[in-house]
């Protein structure tokens, strides 16, 4: 083979240029995750907890700083497969901060026997070994690298302009989550059920996603969103391929975002998972999934909006209705919060419908406010306990305001934010989203407001119970949180209140970030 030919061959393969600098946040988190795996293998058991905590927190803080330094970047790299743009960076920043708070919740050691996470998830439920396990103070720390791997997937998911890469990111973020769902120290059976259910349904959703990619490839001969966009203007292939492909693709991401009618896993999985993991899923996964929805619809299907908008309308209405109405009938707080997250997903979709720059930035802002309140609310749930672990039944919360005014007040602020009462972050978020959508979807906005009113009922019911009802005999006790949970909760509540009163700086940031590079 002559050297000349080799040179020719090298040219045709044409390795894409990688802008390493723009991808530093992802590399840092992935690196920290790998370091965590090493630490798990090399360090003695007694030192792992501290080491993992340092690695996770350090890695996430470093990644957060990297995102901050990239501020203002607008480039796509690896042959346009990844877009580091305003919206992408905003989402990455949000995910990293929320993940940091989740790590703090996972790291809690003073509330339960030692940790909310089980030491050995594979033990058969009900066996002698299982009973032994529930009393032992042994802890395992694999959850930290698992969480970091999931975060790295979440960082890639919303910035992928290439569907195959998006699929890989989806799997990278999902697989650790399936495992983490099964790690609850208490109620092992329920936790294992949650993990299995999430895994099976998630696998189906992934399959739909892949099938959608295949159909879109058949239509556009490419899996790049910008090529698909061009093809939708010029291609003469049957457009059924395009729309069917989009529909199947959407099933995959709507599932991850927990949007009705693909929501049925949410209450069970949220209830069964260890609460810190639930907090992580409800906040970070949702942010990442909405990032992907924004990117697919705004970058890949901008010009075909007439065809998909009615579907997003329908899905948004369904999600708001399911979240608001079914939430009314729940008696378990984790399930109530799960339905609340379904309703919120519907509200966020209202902003997605706008298809404007305002639409993007309002969705970004809403995701941020929603993430903080939801994460902190799940954090509060970990504190109210009885002999069986967390006391999440509604009746157990009655009279909480008298036993622990601080915890009840914190929960009230978070619930008011979710209900969208002014002077909380949730209100500003709702306002931003509804304002952005009003000019294209006024009826949808009115419906969203009606559903907000319905959902407000179950948030208020909790407040009523906490403050106005009498505490039950042998009611739950309020655990004193350790430093990590305290930090996470304080931060969540502070953000919720401050963004309700002085939202301007973050609104500015979101407004500048309202940019998606095609």
């Amino acid at each position, binding site marked *: 083979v002559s050297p000349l030919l080799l040179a020719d061959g090298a040219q045709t393969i044409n390795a894409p240029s990688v802008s390493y600098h723009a991808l530093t946040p992802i590399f840092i988190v992935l690196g920290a995750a790998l370091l965590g795996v090493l630490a798990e293998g090399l360090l003695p058991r007694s030192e792992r907890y501290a080491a993992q905590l340092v690695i996770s927190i350090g890695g996430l803080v470093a990644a957060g700083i990297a995102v901050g330094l990239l501020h203002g970047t607008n480039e796509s790299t690896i042959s346009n497969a990844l877009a580091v743009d305003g919206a992408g960076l905003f989402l990455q920043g949000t995910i990293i901060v929320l993940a940091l708070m989740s790590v703090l919740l996972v790291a809690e050691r003073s509330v339960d026997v030692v940790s909310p996470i089980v030491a050995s998830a594979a033990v058969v439920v009900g066996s002698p070994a299982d009973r032994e396990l529930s009393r032992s103070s042994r802890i395992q720390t694999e959850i930290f690298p698992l969480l970091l791997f999931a975060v790295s997937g979440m960082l890639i998911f919303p910035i992928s302009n290439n569907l195959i890469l998006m699929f890989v990111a989806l799997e990278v973020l999902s697989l650790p989550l399936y495992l983490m769902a099964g790690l609850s120290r208490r109620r092992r059976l329920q936790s294992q059920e949650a993990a299995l259910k999430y895994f099976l349904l998630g696998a189906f959703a992934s399959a739909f996603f892949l099938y959608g990619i295949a159909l879109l490839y058949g239509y556009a001969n490419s899996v790049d969103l910008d090529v698909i966009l061009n093809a939708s203007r010029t291609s003469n292939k049957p457009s059924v391929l395009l729309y069917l492909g989009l529909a199947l693709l959407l099933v995959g991401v709507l599932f991850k975002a927990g949007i009705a009618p693909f929501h049925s896993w949410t209450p069970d999985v949220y209830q069964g998972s260890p609460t810190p993991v639930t907090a992580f899923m409800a906040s970070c996964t949702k942010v990442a999934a909405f990032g992907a929805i924004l990117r697919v619809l705004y970058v890949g299907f901008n010009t075909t909006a007439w065809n998909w908008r009615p579907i997003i309308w329908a899905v948004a209405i369904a999600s708001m209705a399911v979240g608001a109405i079914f939430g009314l009938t729940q008696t378990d707080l984790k399930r109530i919060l799960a339905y609340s997250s379904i309703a919120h997903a519907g509200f966020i979709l209202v902003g997605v419908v706008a298809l404007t720059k305002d639409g993007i930035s309002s969705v970004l802002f809403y995701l941020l406010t929603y993430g903080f309140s939801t994460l902190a609310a799940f954090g509060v749930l970990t504190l109210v306990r009885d002999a069986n672990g967390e006391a999440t039944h509604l009746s157990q919360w009655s009279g909480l305001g008298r036993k622990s005014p601080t915890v009840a007040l914190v929960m009230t602020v978070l619930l*008011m934010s979710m*209900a969208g*009462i*002014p*002077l909380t972050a949730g209100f*500003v978020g709702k*306002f*931003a989203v*509804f*304002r952005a959508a*009003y*000019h294209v979807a*006024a009826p949808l*906005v*009115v419906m969203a*407001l*009606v559903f*907000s*009113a319905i959902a*407000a*009922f179950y948030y*208020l*019911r909790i407040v*009523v119970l906490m*403050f*106005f*009802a*009498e505490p039950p005999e042998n009611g739950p006790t309020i655990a004193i949180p350790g430093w990590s949970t305290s930090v996470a909760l304080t931060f969540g509540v502070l953000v919720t209140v401050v963004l309700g009163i002085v*939202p*301007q700086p973050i*609104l*500015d940031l979101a*407004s500048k970030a309202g940019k998606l590079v095609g």
Partner: protein
Amino acid sequence: MSQNYALVGLVLLPLVGSALVFALGEAQAKLAKQLTLLVSLAAAVYAIVLCFEFDTGSGASRFQFSASWNWIRAFGVHIAFGVDGIALVLVTMAVVLVPAVVLASWTSFDSRSGSEEGPTPYGRRRSVKNYFALLLLLEFFMIGVFTATDVFLFYVFFEAMLVPMYFIIGSFGGPRRQYAAMKFFLYSLVGGLLMLASVIGLFVTTGSRSFALTDLIGKVPDGATQKWLFLGFFIAFAIKAPLIPFHTWLPDAGAEAPAGGAALLVGVLDKVGTFGFLRYCLPLFPAASRYFAPTILILSVIGILYAGFLAIGQRDMKRLVAYTSVAHFGFIGLGIFAFTTQGGTGAVLYMVNHGLSTGALFLVVGLLIARGKSRNVDDYGGAAKVTPILAGLFLLAGLSALALPGMSTFISEFLVLVGTFTRHKGLAVLATTGIVLAAIYVLYLYQRTFQGVMSERVAKFRDVNVREILAVAPLIALIIGLGFYPKPVLDIINPAVKATLTDVHQTDPAPKLGTAHGGTK
């Protein structure tokens, strides 16, 4: 733009006071009460001074003591305060009522009882300082809602106002307080969210990048959109006011709230609804206001008569007073949507008077209930023999509610009826029969409680003490004083009402001298 800090000071005063009272310990209940009284009295004096400073001259600007800062630039939202004559008199009425409420509920939560009506099954000590801190917080929101000159800021106060009231009803109310608090909150929240839809719609349809009221007036295009936006605001205010058929929450909330809370709820919070008609519905949506006016007038008259009959039939004293208020709001609605200067001025004066008179009536009823531990009229009788002063105060408060000439309520009711008569004779005639109903429900209530055979329960009553007299007497003095000399208040109100009617493109109908003889037109 020069900023005038006078009004901002009044807004912030109760907020600071509330924070201080919250910060006190549970054991410092006495200090909490004194501090609350001090702050509320200071606010009352402050507001009265502002009334004297208010320029009522013909060249005076509509909104005075204005100050404005950017709040959320992305939405064009300002922190903007300012008062016209209507807002000023309502603010003054509100802050005058607060010290009376503080005095009247001085000892309401000291005992170990479950509520003012005696021990509930779970009798427990309520946090005294929390009650007073919530009162001041409520005062802050009340002043804010009347003085905001930015639609968004108004909405924020309008909604946030619910929270302290919700806790006052839910934590300190009667046996069915949970139900009442929830009903109150949900009704108001639904109205508020409809208003939010309109607020957003206002922003989008006017294309204005600002929520300042003056930037929005006259910008809403006529037509179907304006009607929808009007309805969003109108329903929110109609629930708040409350106008038939949105009134069912008020009897529950009014009956279950502690007497002081009920006085503020009916006396001030509900005025936000009627105030909203004047300040927002009319100027922002003039065409829609004219379009819907006949319907609203009819609803108002139905309210006057229907609620009057219901009040006569009540056995629960607080529910009775709540129903009288629904009837009175009918009069206010009538005055506002008659679109005459007399009607409008009468309606505003009615709001002030009604706040004072219903506030006084609720407080007096509260004093009676605190003695008898029952809200049921049948448990009383002949109380005038043992408590002559209380009977006197009760009668005066009652007479002001039925608009006896010599009381300020008479002037406002008269103005409303005259103002309505010049445009809608039939409605005015029907509404006048409401006065007869008022006489029946007030006097019948007085007769059953203070006259007749003395019941056992009543025999041990003690008469009012100095504190209780100090709480109620100033309100009654004010009602009588304004009854004889209403000019200063009318002078403040008049220009603002005229300006509002100009916004809605209405002038008083010219006197039609020849009509009796089949005149020219």
